[in-house]
């Protein structure tokens, strides 16, 4: 069985692409991954996705998109993408133990949390180190926490945490925040949220779980320690491009895009945060997914005529 389109990724880009390709009667397989749904699975209320005047929970939005894609006949594989052979058509895509063949491919693997990459971090993810305040803030009731980062997502984490934690300190390596004015204002008005600028986390302390951190002031070089229970990391995202051999990347590691949706290989398209380091919104990812689907449809028509 050769699919017309294999979509890799199950965030807004991948699922929107699937809605469009299936509605165009293209036989579509979607590699959703073991943890499907993408970054929106780690958020609470999404207030900027049009059509939901009262907002919608991120996971509920993804569930709705998945159901919509299923309704038109998308086949799902809930396994992680392993590798792709883009050398010749049909393209071969391995997920879990199985290999699937597709005449065209849409890469929509998005981006994942960028971790601090300091000693003590990796083994304590889920044990005091988190990237999802909406999921985990509850466990930090009356505890001391920090949020690392200075953008909108760092502010959101801090605001959510402040509802539970005893204290929240935003640790940012620059002199000022990057977050939007409205998010800064909300965060700064909270009596529980404090700020530390020009400061970097160099080590996360604790054996079984987080008990503290080591900090370094990057202007004075001064090193200090802080006792605390939770470290929430919000310093951005890394595109999931590690497993795409033969697909050209740009200097930042994102997939290099030609004419809005094409990669360097004919018949392999790209959509969403895996190539877009600029907009990174659910609605733009969905838009890119639509574009890639329409282009793959055009391309399939041309090559089969």
């Amino acid at each position, binding site marked *: 069985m050769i699919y017309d389109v294999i979509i890799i990724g199950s965030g807004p880009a991948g699922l929107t692409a699937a809605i469009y390709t299936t509605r165009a009667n293209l036989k579509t397989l979607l590699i959703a991954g*073991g943890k499907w749904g993408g970054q929106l699975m780690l958020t609470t209320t999404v207030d900027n996705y049009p059509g939901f005047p009262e907002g919608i929970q991120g*996971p509920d939005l993804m569930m709705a998109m998945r159901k919509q894609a299923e309704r038109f006949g998308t086949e799902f594989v*809930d396994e992680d993408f392993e590798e792709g052979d883009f050398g010749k058509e049909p393209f071969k895509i391995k997920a879990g133990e199985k290999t699937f063949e597709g005449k065209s491919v849409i890469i929509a693997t998005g981006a994942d949390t960028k971790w601090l990459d300091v000693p003590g971090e990796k083994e304590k*993810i889920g044990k005091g180190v988190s990237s999802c305040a909406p999921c*985990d803030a509850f*466990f930090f009731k009356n505890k001391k926490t920090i949020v690392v980062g200075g953008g909108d997502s760092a502010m959101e984490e801090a605001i959510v945490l402040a509802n539970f934690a005893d204290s929240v300190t935003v640790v940012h390596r620059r002199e000022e925040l990057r977050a939007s004015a409205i998010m800064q204002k909300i965060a700064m008005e909270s009596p529980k949220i404090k700020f530390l600028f020009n400061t970097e986390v160099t080590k996360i302390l604790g054996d079984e*779980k987080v008990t503290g951190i080591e900090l370094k002031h990057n202007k004075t070089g001064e090193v200090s320690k802080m006792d605390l229970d939770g470290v929430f990391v919000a310093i951005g995202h890394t595109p999931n491009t590690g497993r795409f051999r033969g697909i050209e990347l740009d200097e930042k590691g994102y997939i290099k895009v030609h004419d809005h949706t094409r990669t360097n290989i004919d018949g392999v398209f790209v959509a969403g945060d895996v190539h877009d380091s600029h907009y990174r919104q659910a609605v733009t990812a969905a838009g890119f997914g639509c574009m890639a689907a329409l282009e793959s449809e055009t391309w399939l028509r041309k090559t089969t005529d």
Partner: protein
Amino acid sequence: MADLNFADQDFEEQVLKSEMPVVVDFWAPWCAPCRIVSPIIEELAKEYEGKVKVGKLNVDDSPQTAGKYGVMSIPSILFFKNGQPVKTMIGAQSKENYKKVIEETLG
């Protein structure tokens, strides 16, 4: 018995003293990703009936058990065998992933 709920009070009886392996979904009503796992847990409970006990534990109502096993992120799925936790999976994952671990636990 598709909807099995565990709590602090009966955790020892239901889970730790169980002869079958037990899968426990640590969840809470305010946790949106947990809502995606819940229906999967109910399906697994049916599919493995008689072989594996599959149920849920509300961390709001049963904070002691959550604390005891160091659950600091939900959804967390813990797999118990002979009264011991043998595996923890954090974050909403696919049914396939959960099944793989159940099979390992059984095998």
